[in-house]
């Protein structure tokens, strides 16, 4: 069934413009507060461990997603991170081309469930899975408690 009246003159069809305005402040949460203040104040990356499920979560959370038990055993991640997957971004979030392509990676630590997504400070050709990298942070005084306190990961 279709409409019996149908506009064939496209100039008679109209559109209506509008912005959906919104502005947000997200708290980092109970676990996030501890994770980000530790990163800001000591530069350490903390994970949360579930004894029952023998799992250590990064980013850390206040519950175990497997048994839904509370997590209170927090421990810093140790050793370098391993690059698991990479992408070379030639366009930014607005569709613009940055002067240099950006390298982004999924990073994992041994014995850790989860990991982080972050920038990789290596030339695109050297960005390969298996690369061992360390976080490079903003100087201690200028960190704010945010994921961008980590500037990038480098070999």
């Amino acid at each position, binding site marked *: 069934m279709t409409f019996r009246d149908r506009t064939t003159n496209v100039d008679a069809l109209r559109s*209506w413009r*509008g912005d*959906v*305005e*919104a*502005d*947000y*402040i*997200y*708290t*980092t*949460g*109970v*676990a*996030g*507060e501890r994770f980000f203040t530790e990163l800001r104040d000591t530069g350490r990356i903390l994970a949360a461990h579930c004894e029952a499920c023998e799992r250590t979560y990064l980013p850390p*959370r*206040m*519950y175990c*997603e*497997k*048994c*839904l038990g*509370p997590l209170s055993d927090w421990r810093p991640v140790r050793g370098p991170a391993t690059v698991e997957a990479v992408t070379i971004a030639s366009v930014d979030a607005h569709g613009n081309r940055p002067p240099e392509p950006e390298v982004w990676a999924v990073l994992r630590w041994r014995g850790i469930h989860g990991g982080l997504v972050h920038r990789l400070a290596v030339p695109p050709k050297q960005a390969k899975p298996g690369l061992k990298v360390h976080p490079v942070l903003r100087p201690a005084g200028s960190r704010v408690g945010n994921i961008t306190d980590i500037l990038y990961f480098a070999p």
Partner: protein
Amino acid sequence: MRKVACIGAGMTLFRRRLQETPKEMCWEAARMALDQAGLEIGDVDAVVFGSAPDAFDGIHMKGENVLDACGGIGRPYVRVFTGGGTGVFSPIAAYWHVASGLFDCVLVVNEEKMSSCQPHPQSVFGHIWDPILDRPLKPNLVWIFAMEMNRYMTVHNVRYEDVAAVAVKNKRNAVGHPCAQLADPHITVEDVMNSEVMAWPVHRLDISPPSDGASALVVCSEEFARTHRIESPVWFAGVGWNIDTTFWTDRDLYFPEYLANAAKIAYKQARITDPRRQIDFAEPYDPFDYKELHHMEGLGLCKKGEAPRLTREGVTQRDGDLPTCPSGGLLGVGNPIAATMGIKVGELYLQLSGQAGQRQIPHEVRTGVTNAWGDLMQFSSVVVMRA
């Protein structure tokens, strides 16, 4: 269809601002509900999540965002959404999961985090209006409620103080609720009448506050309740839901026809032919004080235009003949939209299982009804429960 029980409830504090992320609030409520039922997540077959528009939390597809905290990983998991009606709709979804025989035990988690939205959650309410017909007028959502309240009061010749009495009753009832945001044992009708006019006839104290919060329920089959030796299951006796046109300017706002239609479905299932006599107490949705009156009438708990008199005569007080919003309601406990499940279906469960503590209705109650209301003031979900 199989018999379905509610066997556990949990909820966070309702507050203007909580530090918890949406996930964390969900987990806290879910953990509490499981603990109360004496279960672990491994006992749960499926998970239902409910939340109002993504725009409040500011996370698109927030159902996916919070699923790990709800025990959704590796389980049948679904988000349901009926706007402000979600608080009573997600338990209905859990009901049909179990009644159908597909699942034996379902965890329901509802959540809303309204403090993320700046400068005020009202700002994103603006986007629910029709972009061509309504939005150019720069409407605030309170307008629509003010217009409905005015229409209701005018048609039935209702006095404002009889509407304000609902806010007073609920904010006082909330004194007994440990999660309450706006409980006030001393509030008077004069306080409400003298509060700032937002959009006449709506005053500031006629409105429930925006809140952060989460709530959870555990819902199961009769067999599951028996084999797990659940002490005081509370049974779903009837469920219903109904929606009216989005062309809201084509409806007479004085009566919620959609709610009467939803209640009819639920009452048929619950074999209720005379709601006023067969129902012992009610938790109608009360984001505004006039809505409690509107919803009592839509639920058939009294005749059209009669709810203000019942309120004035004390019938709806906790110790009255028809206790209404004994939880303290949205007006007293708070309004984290979908999470109000904890004070609607959650309150029916607690009252009917004798676990409402300080809020327990002093006389014996066997049957309760609740509803939620949402979308563009056009939808209602109804649940009837029995001890």
